[in-house]
């Protein structure tokens, strides 16, 4: 058999296997008696799910989607110490931290009722199954409901949107694999709105053009989130380094594209299983790329450069993301006492009396750093060094030539936030809560907000606060584009290209030795001057001889 025939035969066998598995997994949930009743509370539905999926509860409870932390003993500077690190206890420079603000933040938790520090993480009925498994597109959590959906049709005052009480029976009959909508309902809206946080995850991914995201575009791979983010017993692969520490459980492009992506086909010869779990129901094929000098050079680049660095040309290609958030400017109100809001020409907020001043970016050029998959984070209560500004909220480890170190693209969000100058800690403010709770968004008093927030976080607070500049790094990995839309050599191999300023070993076209260059230029200029003078003297002497 020819190689090509071999290839198609193995694809066929593989497809047959995949479909058998899928059809075995497919059931019609509307036929189940347990689901043919009315549910008044979401927990009732959860307990019905768990009756059949009787291990799912315990599985879920081990995941970071449930815990909002991961265990690690590799935190830089605290190696060997077993820590739990995650959204739950790190600080960022968006809405700072979860403690004391739970009902708002936890509207994106896969549970019901995490409204304060006393949430019971062992109660399986509090798991929200349908936020991920709804396929009807009708299920929504209420933005301030601590993870609950609306229990009756309610308008959320902030955006005037109506949140309906979900039709649990209808949803239960139509559960399925997570889709772009379900994942996106939280992950596209981090930071309180579409595209605010990530810069490379926003609602444009619901139906992106090829030029926005080649994998998820209908004209490209047509893939969904879970085609890459596969799960093993509900533990979903992939982690985001704004909240993660260790170089493990990472998804990688190489899994499908191989380590020589510019000269190999998508499938590794003799290793069809490599792509097995990802393309359960969809196969994406491409021609074997032409092997030439350039494609080999590009393969060589993958030793030091993450695929993302060239294949994410810009972030926030369609929707603006926040790149600057200055909390110190908050507090301005309109004459009638409402928070003042200023919008740019597109209607996107650049000032909000409750939150301060923002800068937004669209089609933004990433910043590039060496990254080896290990990140240091400031946890709630950690000491900072106020003399080193801006404070690094998370520190990306890696260096040129370091093992696993590659150049990665980042969105860096900068801003100003509160810190306690005496205890040298970043302050966790209480932002969200009703009037009289001390929440800044209701009572407008930073001192009170800091006191209550720090108490909830269990961190001593001196009573004083000041503003400090901070930076946070978000590695970019979505919004991947194909080679036609990727970077070209000139983008980095030039004096003031994209990698200008990156401490790298040596990048031809960017780097030079100034001393040697000056020496060389002087040498050439000197030779020129020398022969010119010599020639002129010869000419004059010859003229004189003639005259004599």
């Amino acid at each position, binding site marked *: 058999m020819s190689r090509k025939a071999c290839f198609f035969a193995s694809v066929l066998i593989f497809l047959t296997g995949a479909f058998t598995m899928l059809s075995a997994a497919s059931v019609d949930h509307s036929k189940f008696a347990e689901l043919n009743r009315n549910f008044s509370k979401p927990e009732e539905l959860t307990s019905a799910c768990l009756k059949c999926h009787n291990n799912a509860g315990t599985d879920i409870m081990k995941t970071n989607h449930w815990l909002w932390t991961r265990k690690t003993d590799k935190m830089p500077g605290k190696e060997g110490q077993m820590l739990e690190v995650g959204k739950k206890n790190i600080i960022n420079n968006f809405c700072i931290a979860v403690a004391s603000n739970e009902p708002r933040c936890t509207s994106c938790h896969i549970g019901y009722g995490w409204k304060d520090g006393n949430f019971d993480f062992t109660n399986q009925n509090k798991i929200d199954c349908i936020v991920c498994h709804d396929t009807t597109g009708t299920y929504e959590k209420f933005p301030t409901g601590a993870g609950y959906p609306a229990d009756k049709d309610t308008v959320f005052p902030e955006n005037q949107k109506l949140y309906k009480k979900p039709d649990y029976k209808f949803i239960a009959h139509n559960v399925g694999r997570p889709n772009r909508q379900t994942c996106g309902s939280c992950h596209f809206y981090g930071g309180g709105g579409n595209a605010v946080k990530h810069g490379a995850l926003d609602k444009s991914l619901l139906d992106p053009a090829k030029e926005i995201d080649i994998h998820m575009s209908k004209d490209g791979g047509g893939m969904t989130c879970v085609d890459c983010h596969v799960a093993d017993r509900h533990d979903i692969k992939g982690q985001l380094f704004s909240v993660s520490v260790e170089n493990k459980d990472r998804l990688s492009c190489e899994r499908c594209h191989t380590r020589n992506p510019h000269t190999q086909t998508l499938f590794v010869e003799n290793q069809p299983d490599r792509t097995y779990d990802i393309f359960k129901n969809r196969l994406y094929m491409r021609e074997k790329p032409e092997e030439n000098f350039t494609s080999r050079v590009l393969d060589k680049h993958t030793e030091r450069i993450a695929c993302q660095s060239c294949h994410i040309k810009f972030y926030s290609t369609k929707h603006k993301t926040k790149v600057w958030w200055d909390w110190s400017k908050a507090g301005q109100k309109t004459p009638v006492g409402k928070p003042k809001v200023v919008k740019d020409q597109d209607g996107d907020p650049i000032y909000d009396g409750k939150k301060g001043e923002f800068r937004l970016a669209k089609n933004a050029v990433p910043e590039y750093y060496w990254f080896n998959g290990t990140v240091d984070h400031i946890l709630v209560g950690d000491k900072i060094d106020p003399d080193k500004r801006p404070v690094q909220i998370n520190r990306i480890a890696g260096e*040129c030539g370091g093992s696993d170190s590659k150049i990665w693209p980042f969105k860096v969000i900068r801003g100003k936030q509160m810190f306690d100058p005496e205890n040298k800690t970043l302050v966790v403010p209480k932002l969200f809560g009703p009037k009289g709770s001390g929440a800044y968004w209701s009572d407008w008093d930073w001192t009170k907000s800091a006191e209550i927030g720090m108490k909830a976080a269990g961190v001593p607070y001196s009573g004083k606060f000041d503003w400090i500049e901070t930076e946070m790094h978000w590695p970019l990995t979505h919004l991947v584009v194909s080679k036609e839309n990727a970077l070209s*050599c000139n983008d980095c191999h030039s004096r003031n290209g994209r990698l200008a300023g990156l401490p790298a070993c040596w990048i031809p076209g960017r780097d030079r030795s100034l001393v040697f260059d000056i020496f060389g230029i002087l040498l050439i200029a000197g030779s020129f001057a020398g022969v010119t003078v010599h020639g002129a003297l010869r000419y004059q002497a010859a003229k004189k001889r003639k005259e004599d």
Partner: protein
Amino acid sequence: MSKKVYMYKRFERFWHWAQAALIFFLAFTGFEVHGSYRVLGFERAVVLHNYAGFTLITLIAFAIFWHFTTGEWRHYIPTTDKLREMMLYYFKGIFQGERKPVGKSQKVKLNPLQRLTYVGYKVAIVPLMVSTGVIYYYVAHGDIHLRSVKYIAIFHALGAFLLIAFTIIHVYMTTTGHSLTSHIKAMITGWDEVEDEDITE
């Protein structure tokens, strides 16, 4: 009286001009790789530079073979005899219309100063360019694993500067023959004009 002699054989002339063209092209593409300007684009500059570089190496290999099989290498044996005179000539005699202290003949093509310069070129600059160029190539595109190509690149570029300076002086020196262009013509046609006395010498 002067007389025409067949000074440069066919291969020698081919080698000389091919080498000249390649060096100009290598300098042009090389300094684009270096980041001095953007004309062809980085990618094309790299690709063309590499082709030209390996072509030059091939040419050099043939030239070495030719020099040894024909015995022409003997022209490059350095000597200090009359070296001082030759140097003084360029600082003094040349302005006074004197004749070169060392003449040119088929047997002795190169004067002591030329010998020294070309030997320097052959044993220092060419090996520097070839070795750093080849190492550079295999670090960037092959299987030599260095933490960084930094020093290779710096010395390769240093060699390039030296080579350009060499070329400038070299080209100027061609104008010091019987007429301004006689040396260049000789290298094109092979026929050079030499003084009668030189031949008998």
